[in-house]
């Protein structure tokens, strides 16, 4: 019996101790008509060897590609030590650190994580992670409305990731929240804040993406300033790797900053697990959702760590909690702390700079192909939108046949952009890789003519 250790002798002794004849008797309170004899539709058990072989065959059938897709999930080098340590049984199979004295490892790692995120974002406090960047943004929207105590409107640029905007709508739909979208300049690729001037009445928050979904750098300081001038909070949505190069949200006026932590040590894994981060100014901490670790002392004066400010959370505050979140993405946050420790500030800066340089190099190579051109004029971080002279779906299909994933098709969410791709070249791409893409694209455009 896989993972069940009981021998017949064990069962006999245990039944005797309980005072029943068989295991079936332990279920005698359950009405007969509710019981099933077994489950149909679940395959029989297979030994480990067979299951691993099955999954290996499926993985092999999927194969590997040269990836140039970003769009919110980025391929980065993760030092080998990160997951070798994070997969240690003590981190991997530990529970939430409610028993603080037995969980100092988890708690200290999360305190260090909080410190690193707060510092990266240049804000005062951080929580110990949320599910992902999109749901973190939804929580920030709800937090802003709770803090404003009057306004229920949040301004959301269309340059925010389309799936993030979808998630915010899904999560806030049944609460009193009005999301007003702001258009962007089709020339620069940045938010047209002037369109917001016509909006009257109280606004709880303006969301400021930096960089935005197109990879373009916004005038974040101006946007945050506008928000404050209207008595609204500025909620930054930022890429954590970019913060090694770009002015951090705490310095351009964000009150809350959220984003996707995946670039800090989480493999792409088909979409998760990743983690959302949330940092904020100190005065807002009591309205933050999610677990938070604090440092304190023990009964003998030793420094130690525990979960704190728990009355915000569901297990104490129940219906009035800041959020219903319980389980978060703890292990991913711990891995991020290890990742950042191995990279250090210099490593993070160099990685960010290389991503930036590689994307510009790719852009230049591809733009040299007739008919291919950048869509926007704005400066970019590590992604760029490129216009194609042929239908994007067909081009991508041809690239795929050459084992190249060319980018993200923008027309799905931005039909006004026509045949355009969002492409990203991280530090993992070499000169040879960029050349391979360019040649493959040339061939794809030939064929689709």
């Amino acid at each position: 019996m896989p993972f069940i250790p009981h021998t017949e002798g064990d069962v006999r002794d245990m039944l005797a101790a309980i005072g029943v004849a068989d295991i079936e008797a332990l279920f005698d309170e359950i009405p007969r008509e509710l019981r099933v004899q077994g489950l149909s539709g679940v395959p029989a058990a297979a030994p480990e060897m067979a299951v691993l072989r099955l999954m290996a065959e499926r993985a092999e059938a999927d194969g590997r590609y040269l990836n140039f897709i970003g769009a919110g999930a980025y391929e980065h080098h993760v030092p080998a030590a990160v997951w070798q340590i994070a997969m240690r049984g003590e981190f991997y199979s530990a529970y939430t650190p409610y028993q603080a004295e037995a969980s100092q490892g988890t708690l200290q790692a999360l305190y260090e994580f909080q410190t690193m995120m707060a510092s990266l974002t240049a804000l005062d406090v951080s929580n110990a992670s949320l599910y992902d960047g999109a749901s973190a943004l939804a929580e920030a929207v709800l937090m802003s409305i709770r803090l404003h105590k009057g306004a229920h409107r949040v301004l959301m640029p269309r340059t925010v990731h389309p799936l993030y905007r979808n998630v915010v709508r899904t999560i806030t739909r049944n609460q009193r929240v009005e999301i007003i979208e702001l258009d962007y300049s089709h020339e620069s690729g940045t938010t047209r804040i002037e369109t917001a001037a016509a909006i009257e009445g109280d606004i709880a928050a303006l969301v400021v993406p930096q960089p935005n979904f197109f990879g373009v750098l916004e005038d974040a300081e101006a946007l945050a300033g506008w928000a404050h001038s209207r008595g609204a909070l500025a909620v930054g949505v930022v890429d954590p790797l970019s913060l090694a190069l770009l002015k951090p949200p705490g310095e351009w006026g964000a009150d809350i900053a959220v984003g996707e932590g995946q670039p800090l040590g989480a493999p792409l894994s088909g979409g998760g697990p990743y983690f959302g981060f949330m940092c904020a100014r100190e005065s807002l901490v009591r309205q933050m959702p999610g677990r938070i670790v604090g440092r304190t002392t023990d009964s003998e004066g030793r420094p130690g760590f525990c979960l704190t400010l728990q009355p915000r959370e569901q297990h104490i505050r129940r219906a009035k909690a800041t959020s219903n979140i319980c389980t978060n993405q703890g292990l991913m946050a711990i891995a991020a702390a290890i990742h950042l420790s191995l990279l250090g500030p210099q490593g993070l800066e160099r990685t960010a700079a290389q991503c930036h340089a590689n994307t510009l190099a790719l852009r230049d190579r591809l733009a040299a192909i007739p008919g291919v051109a950048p869509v926007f004029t704005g400066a970019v971080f590590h992604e760029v939108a490129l216009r194609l002279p042929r239908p994007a779906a067909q081009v991508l299909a041809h690239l795929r046949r050459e084992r190249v994933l060319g980018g993200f098709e923008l027309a799905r969410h931005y039909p006004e952009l026509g045949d355009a791709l969002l492409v990203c070249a991280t530090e993992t791409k070499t000169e040879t890789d960029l050349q391979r893409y360019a040649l493959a694209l040339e061939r794809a455009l030939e064929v689709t003519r």
Partner: protein
Amino acid sequence: MNPPADLKYTNTHEWARAEADGTLSVGITDHAQEMLGDIVFVEPPEIGRKLAAGAECAVVESVKAAADIYAPVSGEVVAVNAALADAPQSINQDAYGAWIFRLKPANAEELGSLLDAAAYAAIVESAEK
């Protein structure tokens, strides 16, 4: 358990003291602070806010619980005890001295429907059984 005789009480464990200037000081009882444990934070109501009797107006937090405080009578919040921001534990030390907020009662008759010390003590005793 000896709730002071000169105060009035609610069955949600608030006490109320009529002050000389006509305002009403409000706090939580000794029984309440004991149930909560070490108090770590008090979220007072906003000054100027108009409360209906029984309205949720403040929160008192301990490490393991958060208790809503309800307005004993209707009125307008005219003062909050700023000392509780730095020393929330004063509620544990002296529950009847550590007032949380003061209000100007809207309707003097409502005070009459509050419990006296004996009635409150009886409620607590029967709950404990």
